[in-house]
């Protein structure tokens, strides 16, 4: 079981990460990749600033990864979360899941995203096109509801 967890400022490449995840295996039938992108919120945003809690972020992502492995028959998973200043159209987060069949890969990826959103210690702040630093993004009740589906 290949598990990759990274927190980084650098960009990532879905094709390269998929190749890394599936390297040397011919029993993987399905790979699901979720990429979360920075939106410009109708042109208002110049960037999102992502703060995280080093140490705990890795620990929490590992815990979430372990839980996904216990729930679905996965052959590998990758979670990469960027931090720092992220411009509109840039990627923020990547979740990759590999399994023999597609439903396990889909559901595990959706689970990982729901839990990342509500459990991983990252916070977003808006930087606006007019040069000002905007508000911290508020957590959405709908995300807690989404994570609650898996309990």
């Amino acid at each position: 079981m290949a598990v990759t967890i990274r927190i980084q400022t650098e960009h990532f490449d879905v094709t390269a990460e998929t190749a890394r995840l599936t390297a040397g295996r011919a029993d993987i039938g399905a790979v699901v990749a979720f990429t979360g992108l920075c939106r410009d919120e109708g042109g208002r945003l110049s960037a999102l600033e992502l703060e995280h809690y080093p140490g705990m972020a890795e620990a929490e992502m590992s815990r979430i990864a372990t839980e996904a492995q216990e729930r679905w028959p996965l052959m590998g998973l990758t979670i990469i979360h960027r931090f720092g200043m992220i411009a509109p159209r840039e990627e923020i987060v990547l979740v990759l899941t590999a399994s023999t069949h597609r439903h396990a890969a889909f559901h595990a990826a959706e689970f990982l995203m729901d839990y990342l959103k509500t459990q991983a210690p990252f916070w977003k702040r808006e930087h606006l096109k007019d040069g000002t630093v905007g508000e911290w993004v508020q957590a959405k009740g709908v995300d807690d509801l989404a994570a609650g589906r898996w309990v």
Partner: protein
Amino acid sequence: MKLVYFAWVRERVGKTDEDVELPTSVSTVADLVRWLKGRGEEYEYAFENEGIVRAAIDHVHVKPEASVLQAREVAFFPPMTGG
């Protein structure tokens, strides 16, 4: 014990982290918050709505009733908005 703060909790408290000596009256996260609020306006502001600020002890999410007696690092932060 080390305290660390993130996002708007960090901004309101005005520091990223600090080392504190806890009085014996503090044994839970809720006690710690109450004690911190007595230390100044910045803490009162940061914790003005206790239901919102989250806590972690040594990198694990905890509830207000969790004991801080064995903790090395206690973190306070807003609800997470990553992903």
